[in-house]
């Protein structure tokens, strides 16, 4: 286990690129996530069922991919994400087993507020074809800045 270096928040400015993260979407992890989250919707875990739906196969839970977005924010900002983070995202396309998704973000606005410096970011999760899986905004508040 371990953590890559966090983002240096003292040098943040509008346009700063967050450290991105890549994740392989594999059925085994989707099955594990179903167990862990207790979400056993067959579209995620029953390949025969899923093949006969318009989706044509299993897809990852949206909340699993959202967890990757949160991981990216944690990796960049550490504990402050857990106590001041806000996420506003839309699920645009499903992530499927075999996909590699890249989660990225860019600082779009820095604002001084009563609580500290609000850092607003665009966040994006795309698959290997460049298709957007999740898009939205995320923010944190750096107190004492």
């Amino acid at each position, binding site marked *: *286990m*371990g*953590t890559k270096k966090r983002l240096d928040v003292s040098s943040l400015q509008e346009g700063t690129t967050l450290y991105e993260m890549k*994740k392989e979407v594999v059925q085994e*992890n989707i099955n*594990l*996530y179903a*167990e*862990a*989250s*207790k*979400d056993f*919707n067959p*579209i995620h875990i029953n390949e025969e069922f899923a093949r006969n*739906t318009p989706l044509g196969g299993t897809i990852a839970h*949206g*909340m*699993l991919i*959202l*967890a*990757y977005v*949160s*991981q990216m924010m*944690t*990796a960049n900002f*550490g*504990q402050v*994400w*857990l*106590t*001041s*983070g*806000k*996420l*506003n*995202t*839309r*699920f645009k396309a499903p992530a499927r087993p075999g996909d590699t998704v890249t989660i990225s973000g860019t600082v779009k606005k820095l604002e001084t507020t009563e609580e500290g410096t609000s850092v607003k970011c665009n966040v994006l999760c795309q698959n290997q074809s460049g298709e957007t899986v999740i898009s*939205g905004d995320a923010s944190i508040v750096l107190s004492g800045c």
Partner: protein
Amino acid sequence: MTVQKLEYRQLEVGQQFPAVSFNLDSDSLAAYLKSTGELDSLYEGTGIVPPTAVAAWALISLLEHVALPEGTIHLSQELQCLSMATEGDTLNCRARVSRKQERGRLRLLDIEFDVVGKEGTLLISGKSSFNFP
């Protein structure tokens, strides 16, 4: 106990769901961290629970009260992290219907929820939006 699931037509804006509580046990936390490949050192031996884990467990508990027919789509998710949950905590979740709108073939439903920990500390707030078939 069998929970009576509510159909879309039975839901109304402002309707509160029965509060649910759930425990953040170590096995569930370990399973969640493994399934999401969460390797951040913040979670190593600290018992801190990722906010998305709390949200996922809250959501799945709440949805025991709502019938989600095949084809229901989770459109969007908002999440506000206010305080950290830790392993062993028992959390309570309150939720309500904040929007119900039918527009053409769309049948939209928003559910807002708050997850509180010990002494009523608000940990997570969220809003989940769905389109029903």
